């Protein structure tokens, strides 16, 4: 079977692979995680405004943290892609700081899972991810693009304005509209 035919792992597969890395430093499992996540993490970092070499280095940083912190992954709290997204976001923030300060990072390695989980969180991780998937599917194409750009752009307001040809002044209210539609799914009623 060529690489192209290999099935794309689903969330449960990815969680199981992380668990194997945590339990026995399993490098075969790690290679499979790497194959799935590294190109997606790099795509994320590129969209977030990193040039090729920096995105490459940051991708390596993310994947190293996946290896080192695999034992901190708790599938009851978050799905595999959610966990890796949080790591990638924090590495992105750290690289931005270094770029802006021109110095080596003085920041202790960012922790990704610092909050004690609430009982609700423990019960609902799977269900929450399913609800979010459905809520995202329920958005219009424009709203989905707004949410995507909110997560993936270095300057979301400017990016949304230029991608959707919206005046900057209306971007905020469009983000709000999209978020209101997601709100039910993400459990924020305020």
């Amino acid at each position, binding site marked *: 079977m060529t690489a192209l035919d290999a099935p794309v792992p689903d969330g449960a597969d990815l969680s199981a692979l992380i668990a194997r890395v945590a339990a026995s430093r399993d490098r075969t499992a790690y290679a499979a995680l790497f194959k799935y996540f590294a190109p997606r993490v*790099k795509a994320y970092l590129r969209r977030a405004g990193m040039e090729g070499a920096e995105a*490459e280095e940051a991708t390596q940083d993310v994947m190293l943290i996946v290896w080192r912190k695999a034992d901190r992954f708790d599938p009851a709290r978050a799905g595999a892609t959610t966990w890796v997204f949080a790591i990638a976001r924090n590495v992105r923030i750290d690289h931005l700081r270094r770029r802006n300060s021109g110095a080596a990072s003085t920041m202790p390695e960012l922790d990704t899972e610092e909050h004690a989980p609430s009982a609700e969180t423990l019960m609902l991780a799977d269900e929450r991810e399913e609800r979010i998937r459905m809520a995202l599917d329920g958005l219009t194409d424009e709203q989905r693009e707004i949410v995507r750009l909110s997560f993936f752009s270095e300057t*979301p307001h400017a990016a949304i304005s230029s991608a959707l040809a919206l005046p900057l002044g209306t971007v905020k209210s469009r983000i709000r509209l999209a978020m209101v539609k997601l709100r039910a799914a993400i459990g924020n009623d305020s």
Partner: protein
Amino acid sequence: MIRHHPTLETLLAHAAGTLADGPAVVVEAHAQGCPQCRATLDALDATGGQLLGELSPAPLEPATFERVLARLDVSPAVRPSPPRQASLALPQGTRLPAALRNAQIGRWFWVAPGVRYSRVRLPWAPAQNLMLLRVGGGRRVPHHSHGGMELTQVLWGGFRDGDDRYGPGDLGEADETTAHQPLADPEGCICLASLEGGLRLPWLTRLLGK
């Protein structure tokens, strides 16, 4: 009970990693005490995860995997030593939020009658305008507006801002359209606040004859 939370837009920016470092620390301080906002941030992380999974993979350089393999067994750099933190006299039972554990914290300075200020410096983002404010009972924070977003997390006591009361755990969010003069509760108030774009103080401008 917590009644005032960050707006959903601010939580979204925090989850996306696009909130500036100063406001991000204030939102963290709030979320550490607010199960509702923690749940929202978890859900927003899951949204980011879902979107990450949908991205078209970007090509890696040929040796990326080998380079990472070579680094797997190298121990990470040691953590820097804890930052300098002045021991601020805080009311009994009040602790600084865990979100400040890596911040440098200065001693209290007098800034106005009944108002004291302690500079909070983030070693990784030293230009951020972050502070602890201690306002005496019944005192007003001088009337001000802002060049950008202001986040205020109540650590102890409380204040009124117009018709709204803010107590421990509440986060107040104001922007460049807000001009206000919060009034501390009778027992006083201690807050963690971040300011973007500087503070506009009409009384100070008048005083300086500008």
